[in-house]
């Protein structure tokens, strides 16, 4: 019976205190949207890091005077090597063709390099790009190798930027979580303030703390869940706008956000929204109204 009373109370409460409820939902929506956006950004950059990481190759350039035997033995050694995921061979013509393609908008550089000036190479993808040093050590005594180039170093600037963006996203996420907490605490405090007479009357009639508090807390949590759903909808809409078609503002900067990450936001935001507002409501009533 008591439970039914409380549930009924929550629904009626949500309906009656429309102003308060809407205030709380809007507050939560704004904060949760920002929170969700920063978490998505963080995940997205992670994903882009992975993609770039996955593309990283170790180029094993061969000496100009490499012999067929050396080449074959090196290829065999690389194919046997447990660190290696895949291996492609690029001869001088292929290397030049690729060079021309990549630098097509720098004609001066293209003309400066003779066909055949670029050495042949093995392009190695490692199972784990971090094991580059190991591979280099293992190849040390193989003859016929010119230089070994690890793209990781070339991409270090890109990764530094990714790192910065992630740090920033984290800072924003934490800031927004704190802001959400403050705003929700405030809204609830105001709600509690506007209900203080009612609470006082209930207590004078003999209502227990639990009886007074439960509907309030559940109401706040319901508002939290609704807010998180609206926030999710806003994020979804935002994604369509920012990534929609080639003219979307973010298509040049970020890879598209996968559906999976997107839907992950729903339970995350709902949990944060309900949790933050529920706990805040409980504490607010506890200390503010001395229920």
């Amino acid at each position, binding site marked *: 019976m008591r439970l039914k009373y409380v549930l009924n109370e929550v629904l009626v409460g949500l309906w009656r205190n429309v102003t308060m409820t809407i205030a709380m939902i809007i507050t939560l929506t704004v904060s949760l949207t920002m929170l969700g956006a920063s978490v998505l950004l963080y995940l997205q950059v992670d994903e882009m890091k992975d993609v770039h990481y996955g593309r990283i190759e170790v180029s094993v350039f061969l000496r100009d005077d490499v012999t067929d035997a050396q080449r074959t033995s090196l290829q065999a050694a690389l194919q046997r090597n447990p660190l290696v995921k895949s291996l492609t061979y690029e001869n001088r013509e292929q290397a030049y063709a690729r060079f021309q393609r990549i630098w097509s908008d720098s004609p001066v550089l293209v003309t400066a390099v003779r066909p055949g000036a670029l050495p042949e190479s093995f392009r190695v993808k490692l199972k784990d790009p971090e094991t580059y040093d190991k591979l280099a050590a293992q190849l040390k005594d193989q003859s016929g190798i010119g230089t070994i180039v690890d793209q990781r170093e070339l991409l270090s600037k890109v990764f530094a930027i990714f790192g910065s963006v992630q740090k920033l996203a984290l800072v924003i996420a934490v800031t927004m979580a704190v802001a959400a907490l403050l705003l929700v605490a405030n809204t609830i405090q105001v709600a509690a303030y506007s209900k203080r007479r009612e609470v006082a009357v209930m*207590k004078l009639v003999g209502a227990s703390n639990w009886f007074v508090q439960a509907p309030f807390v559940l109401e706040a949590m319901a508002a939290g869940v609704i807010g998180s759903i609206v926030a999710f909808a806003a994020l979804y809409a935002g994604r369509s706008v920012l990534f929609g078609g080639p003219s979307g503002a973010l298509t040049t900067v970020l890879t598209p956000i996968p559906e999976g990450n997107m839907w992950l936001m729903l339970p995350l935001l709902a949990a944060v929204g309900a949790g933050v507002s529920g706990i805040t409501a409980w504490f607010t009533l506890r200390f503010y109204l001395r229920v």
Partner: protein
Amino acid sequence: MIALENVTKTYPKASRPSLDAVTVGIEKGEFVFFIGPSGSGKSTFIKLLLHEVQPTSGRVVVNAKDVTTMRPWRIPHFRRSIGCVFQDFRLLPNRTAYENVAFALEVIGKTKAVARRVVPEVLELVGLGGKEHRYPHELSGGEQQRVAVARAFVNRPLILLADEPTGNLDPDTSIEIMRLLDRINRTGTTVVMVTHDSNIVNQMRRRVIEIESGRIVRDQARGVYG
């Protein structure tokens, strides 16, 4: 049933005590009128019994329980044995008359079915049949007061405190309410009633406690007003 022992209450901002070394005892089943000029401390007395305010010194015993030293978590349960009509009604503003009365039943754990049976009956008793679904601001002053009376006795409390329960009522309706309180008293409920209405006091001829500037100046078994 009710015992105050040398109770003094001085509000923080007040220059002199609102209750001054009051000692009084009320037995189970008694009907007591509390009279006295405006600001003499009658409502303060009621508030002390409910643990709404704490005494500055002295002991308040209600229902064999020492209210002054009561643990906070026991207070709700304690209050459920007391019905109270407040001077300013204290109805819940966003609940209808029905819901306000039903609240007192919900608090003691009665089912909705019980409320549906009992509440309309009680509202009918105080003359509010047909006005169950009005919010307090949609009722006249006297009607609000009668909702407050209905809420106070709907759960058959051991003690009924009534702070000027007829202040906003015409003489005829007042007499109805007095008959009701009398009937409740006859079932064994202790009734303490604060009033300014000399006609009622003179008609009923019950115990009268008169208070002036926080001191009891008269305590008469079958007294009259002034």
